């Protein structure tokens, strides 16, 4: 995470800053991660509950 040197006024913004500024990327990842790990995986677990013998 740490970068060396002082930022210059004319240098382009650091790539990390651009990623943090990309609200649509953050939005998409937020929804995707939550939906897959919490909803989809959870419902798969429920669907896989076997019938009683």
């Amino acid at each position, binding site marked *: 995470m740490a970068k060396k040197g002082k930022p210059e006024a004319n240098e382009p913004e650091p790539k990390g800053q651009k990623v943090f500024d990309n*609200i649509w990327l953050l939005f998409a*990842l937020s929804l995707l991660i939550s939906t897959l790990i919490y909803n989809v995986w959870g419902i798969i677990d429920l669907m896989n509950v076997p019938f009683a013998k």
Partner: protein
Amino acid sequence: MTTLAPTTPWTSTAKDDYRICGVTTLKVDMHAERLIIANAVMAVVCLLLGGIAALLIALTRWQVFHLLPANWFYRLLTLHGIDMLVAWIVFFEMAGLHFGSTALLNARHASPKLAWFGFILMTIGGLMVNGVVLFDPNSSVMFSAYVPLKAHPLFYLSYILFAVGALITVATFFINIVVAKREGRFSGSLPLVVFGLMTAAILAVYTLLEGAAAIVPAFFWSMGILKNYDPGIYRNFFWGFGHPAQQVNLAAMVAIWYALAQMTTGIRPVNEKFSRFAFILYLFFINLGSAHHLLVDPGLSFAWKAVNTSYAMYLAVLGSMMHAFSIPAAIEVAQRAKGHNKGLFGWLRNAPWGEPGFAALIMSMIIFGWIGGVTGVTIGTEQINMLAHNTMRLPGHFHATVVGGTTTVFMGFTYYVIPLIFRKELKLKSWAKLQPYVFGFGTILVSLGMITSGLQGVARRHWDITFTGVVPGTVNITLAIMGIGALIAVTGGIMYITIVLTSILTGPRLEASNLLLTSGTNNPLLESTKLTDEMMERPQNQPKGTLVIVFAFLAWFAIYYLSNWWLLGRTWFIK
């Protein structure tokens, strides 16, 4: 060094309907101002309804009074949950979103008609659900409305209208930002407070979509159109709405923490990358915490429970711990730079404790972190949850977070919204100085009373636990602590509502002339722009006191957490 306000000039077209704030030099779009006022007013109305319910149900669970009969207890408990957890807090957040996407970006409100439509839907939904619960005897189903418990179809419709209205409002937040960027109203990155509000807005989209997934089928099921609705699937979607809704509150609360810290002590973030990274950890992982409610549910695997309840290796908790350092550190650096340098905590002793916004900020951080956060992570531990699930440890935890944390700081922030947006003089300033402390202290007692009752086995959402004859007599003491705390907190709530109503309903319209309410004529917002990189990095300005505080917090966290494992180890064997 930050500038006070972005200086891109506005185009002089009919679209630009704004005024310039004399105190902050920010441009306030008139549509945004009216929307903020409308949402703030509805927020307070819902707080009042929820607060009346709070008093009556607290006096019922306080066994000595046992005020309400059972059916009214369950009815008002349902109402209290919905009015507080959903209505009060979401209306207030919508006001925040309108503010954050316009005034803080030097931008106009690009979609006022859509925003008003969203507001109207939310208002209809909010008022309708109160009506349904109050007048229909069969709709006391709690805020969670677990299928197969069935309410009147209008109950579910109310939720749907409210959620759609909120979703539309959240959409206008993003529309405003996109338009502001396109019209060149601001350049570079979003200010940190707006970034935090944006985090809240993104979490809100997930929240509301989950709400739709849970409640829309429930609506059709309540009318007999949908025949079967698996209770496990309902719970997955409902808590995909219910807990992230609280994380929206968390993100909004943290954004307001940064705002109030800047407004009362003139901070500059110690490291923008650090703070933004903490918000991004929320974005990626905090919704997984929905699993906290499902830890002792049938059908779900250990792996799913452990991964989700831990917010993926506790990374979202890491985000909170980062903010817990970042904000006091910024306050400390700003204070030290002003000369309050004595010892480890001179900066804190000389902080503006009499300034309502600072009081609210500190009470909110302490209660949220030391009680809310610690208890939440602990009882959200998969195995430990067996000791806590559906006991009063649950409301004990979330009254610390939602009430002690979010509500307290929203109340404090309101005191600035009144002169700056409502443009009325804040009346009863001496009350405003005390109110955060009264409300906060009451909430602490409520929370501790509930937690200690839950540790003794007292159930939540339960009209009379002594009925079962099973709880020890000491429960009467802990429920009394909760009851006394409730009386104090309700007093704090009444103070807030009185201050707000007196201020906005009496007196002339007055342009604000001072940022601080009670502690001076200096302008911390302006002062924050004078903090240079050199001042921030000077060795004597470094936040040593904060480091001590956060380590003390960690020690307390460890003690509480580990003692719960010890408690678990003493119960029956089970797997």
